[in-house]
């Protein structure tokens, strides 16, 4: 009975708080949006033998229907929406495999400059134990995650987002979660400029860490070390600075740093204790 009432609550209350005016935090219902950013940046790869990904051209596609939405790599269906809280069922491609490959969908438009910036394993400081190159381990598979997302809008400029996900294609058989607090700021001294600052954490279950970052002689024939993954909590911050140049052109600065905890950093596959994203450029809204 209580589950019935919960379901009734979820599916009946749908009085979406509409955005009152056009802004970057609002999307027009029923319209596809496509934008292209061009500039210079890098998405670092924390793995031994993994290439840093140069960011040159970044496409962005989004669609928001009454309930259905697609934003970047996330497909979602909103089941509850009121002034403060939005609950959605979502599915997305888990990006963990991207560190092991060069043909992740997010890299489609990005030029390869791998020869210039690949870190050669032989020059890596062997700080905690012998390193293992990604070429020496068995191929990791792409995982598709699905789960639930909560967006709690505290006020006009502050929101909290929580994702709880599980892989649905039997790859790592575990959970991952993300908690993020975002604050939007504008400045009187800088008209047409918005800054978004986020702090958050990625939580990866033992199953996920073990599948992607664990090593064992039985699983990986070229590896002698045995490393068992454990639950990992990786905090991060993100800063996005956006200045509107004209109706369709924006100048953009994007900075993000994820700090890997010891349960991931101790993996012989991992060489860096952080993952950084830096991008500066201009974007055009079509």
């Amino acid at each position: 009975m209580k589950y019935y009432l919960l379901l009734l609550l979820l599916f009946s209350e749908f009085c979406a708080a509409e955005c009152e005016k056009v802004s970057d935090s609002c999307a027009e219902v029923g319209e596809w949006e496509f934008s292209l950013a061009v500039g210079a940046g890098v998405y670092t790869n924390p793995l031994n033998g993994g290439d840093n990904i140069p960011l040159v051209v970044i496409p962005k596609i989004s669609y928001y229907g009454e309930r259905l939405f697609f934003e970047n790599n996330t497909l979602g269906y909103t089941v509850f929406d009121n002034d403060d809280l939005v609950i959605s069922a979502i599915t997305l491609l888990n990006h963990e495999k991207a560190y092991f490959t060069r043909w992740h969908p997010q890299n489609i438009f990005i030029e390869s400059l791998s020869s210039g910036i690949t870190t050669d394993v032989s020059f890596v400081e062997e700080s905690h134990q012998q390193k293992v190159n990604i070429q020496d381990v068995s191929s990791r598979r792409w995982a598709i995650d699905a789960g639930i997302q909560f967006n709690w809008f505290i006020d006009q400029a502050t929101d909290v987002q929580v994702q709880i996900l599980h892989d649905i294609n039997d790859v790592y058989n575990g959970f991952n979660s993300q908690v993020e607090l975002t604050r939007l700021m504008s400045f009187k001294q800088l008209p047409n400029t918005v800054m978004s600052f986020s702090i958050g954490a990625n939580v990866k279950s033992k199953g996920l860490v073990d599948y992607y970052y664990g090593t064992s002689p039985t699983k990986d024939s070229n590896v002698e070390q045995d490393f068992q993954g454990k639950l990992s909590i990786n905090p991060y911050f993100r800063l996005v600075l956006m200045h509107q140049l004209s109706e369709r052109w924006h100048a953009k600065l994007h900075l993000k740093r994820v700090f890997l905890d010891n349960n991931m950093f101790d993996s012989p596959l991992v060489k860096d204790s952080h993952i950084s994203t830096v991008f500066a450029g201009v974007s055009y809204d079509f």
Partner: protein
Amino acid sequence: MISSMLKLIIYLFVFSSFIKPLAAASTNKLIIKPSVCMVKKFGDSCQMTVKVMWHNEQPTDACLFQNDSRLTCWQNVRDINTDLDILLDQDMKFTLKSNDKILAYQKIKINTMLPKKYRRRLRADWSIF
């Protein structure tokens, strides 16, 4: 007395020289009514019958264009006063031309009855990285 009459005539002449081009301009103006078409929601096409009016002092050959496509033509015409069925899916410019010379034009706008709806974005900008 004669001098005041002369002054009046001169004033009238000068005044009429300003008035005449204005009057001519107003008669040359292309009038299409209604100039706004209402549709239910954004993206819908609009079909309606409009009244097209135009006047010129000299008879001329003229064609009416909807953006770049020709709708209809008149030969040796001084007055146009006709009903026309039009179909538009966005704001359009209607131009009256005579041998590629633009005689007059008017825009027809599409307005939606339901205002555009917006909702809050649920993923951070570039959350993929």
